[in-house]
């Protein structure tokens, strides 16, 4: 009976989530343009070999890694700070929590549009620069600032969700540990260092991995804010895959890129799980 209840979902997930992975892997070993009448042609590992010397692909991986590395520390550290502040049971705190959480729930494409204005020549950031006597910048059209600008938006977007996860993590730390530490004469810094931080380790590991998986797949904000430019300085791997597949019609090599991205995300997450998750 249980099997019967699971059957519709299993069939659907098998066809539309599991099978595409296998199909994609097959495509990554082929040359295939959707405009061809002929269908995919098997070419072995050529697509993967070509990626080894593909400058655009290499650059996209570097951009993706830099992007994740820029967003992650801020998105985690600031969120932890906010969670510590908001982890009080006082009236009015709910309003702050809700306000800080709001960016997490709004659609990425929609907020990218808002940030497009904030970064625009007449936007808010240039207005702020002007007020302290600095020259306006062309945030999104300057190779030196475009990726940082997109990263800034993603920090803003990630804070609330991470804060809420930290709050849940804080509440999971047994109160008795704090009481014991106080009895032993620990001051508030020591309580934070030796009770709070170790207690938050599991949730921090989860947050870091979750953020990496999300950030490494950036697309909508790149599409709207920069279109991958200037000079490919914001072309993340995910964006490159989209271009390769749906603008250059190279489904085979785009699939190979997707699997390399998959492997990289998986390897990074695994590494972090090993380093952060194990030794306690």
């Amino acid at each position, binding site marked *: 009976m249980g099997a019967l209840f699971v059957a519709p979902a299993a069939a659907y997930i098998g066809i539309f989530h599991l099978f595409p992975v296998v199909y*994609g892997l097959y495509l990554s070993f082929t040359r295939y343009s959707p405009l061809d009448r002929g269908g995919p042609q098997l070419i072995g590992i050529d697509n993967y070999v070509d990626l080894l010397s593909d400058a655009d692909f290499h650059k996209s991986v570097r951009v993706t890694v830099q992007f994740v590395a820029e967003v992650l520390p801020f998105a985690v550290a600031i969120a932890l700070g906010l969670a510590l502040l908001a982890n009080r049971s*006082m009236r009015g*705190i709910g309003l702050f929590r809700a306000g800080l*959480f709001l*960016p997490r729930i709004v*659609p990425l494409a929609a907020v990218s549009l808002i940030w*497009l204005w904030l970064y625009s020549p007449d936007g808010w950031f240039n207005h702020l620069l002007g007020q302290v006597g600095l020259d306006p910048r062309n945030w999104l059209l300057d190779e030196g600032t475009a990726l940082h600008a997109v990263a800034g938006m993603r920090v803003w977007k990630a804070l609330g969700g991470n804060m809420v996860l930290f709050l849940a993590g804080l*509440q999971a730390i047994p109160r008795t540990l704090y009481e014991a530490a106080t009895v032993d004469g620990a001051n508030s810094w020591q309580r934070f260092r030796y009770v709070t931080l170790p207690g938050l380790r599991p949730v921090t590991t989860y947050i870091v991995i979750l953020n990496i998986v999300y950030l490494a797949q950036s697309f*909508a904000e790149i599409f709207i804010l920069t279109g991958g430019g200037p000079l490919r300085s914001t072309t993340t791997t995910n964006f490159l895959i989209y271009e390769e*597949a749906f603008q250059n019609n190279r489904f085979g090599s785009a699939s190979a890129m997707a699997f390399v991205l998959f492997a990289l995300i998986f390897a990074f997450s695994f590494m972090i799980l090993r380093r952060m998750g194990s030794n306690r």
Partner: protein
Amino acid sequence: MMSVHTSRGPGRIGARWPAVRRPATRWIARRRPGTFLVLMIATVLVMMPFLWMLSIAFKPEAEVFTSVPSMLPADPTFENFSTAWTSGNVGRAMINSTMVAGAAVLVNCTFAVLAGYAFAKLPFRGSTLVFLLMISTAMVPVAVTLIPLFLMTKGFPLVGGNDLLGQDGTGLLDTLPGVVLPHLIAPLNIFLARQYFFGLDDDLGEAARIDGASELTTFWRIYVPLARPLVAVVAIFSFTAVWDDFLWPLVVTSSMEAETVQLALSKFLTGGNVMYGPAMAGAVLVILPVVAVFVFNQRSFIAGLSDGGVKG
């Protein structure tokens, strides 16, 4: 004391938004002015983009491009909203997205919940393996399945001029069923449902079975009424997954007739000259439903978010 790692009880979903304990109802501003100030500044900064969005949405075009932007529109207007709704195609897109999201909510709330229930309450031989296999697909990056799903949508048999083998036509490309195809059942929802039903008592079902109820009746009459918070979480997740999606509709649709909300917003960019007034009005319209759902279901939102992970 709530425990993230061990709690499996019903009502756990919904109780996760860390509770403000009643006894300490001193207002934060008086009790901890320093904390209050920092939180106040942080919240205002975080809300700033939304305030500007609202401000520009109500400004006439001439006011948007002033060298010193002011938050309050001098001459507020609704014009941007009507421009966004009609010539920006946001109206049509909102109807489309609502239909697509509605379908995803319906199917998820039925089949994902049913599957999660079976995994928790009616295990069968190999069910753990099947479960793990289904959940593992949640870890696959979108880019991996994007191209295969595109080809499968194009080759969907017997629609869009296709024959039985999916040849000769365009299948479900550029149609709303094509947009909803990857969203009908999300592995995460099955996971959440399984966790939730684990927390409900087995005896309830036993009693119903002894009274001669069928398995489906037991599920529908006994357990589903107890799982309202779960269904709310699944509904919210399914809705936002479709409403917020950008890459898949971008790939699978091409005409204004099948456009979704996020795509409609991105169209304000084309031509390099962004009409910020209508664009922000469009953003307000698209963000509003999500914020409304959030305000009325804060607990479900937070619970689902924390459950998806802290449990692991």
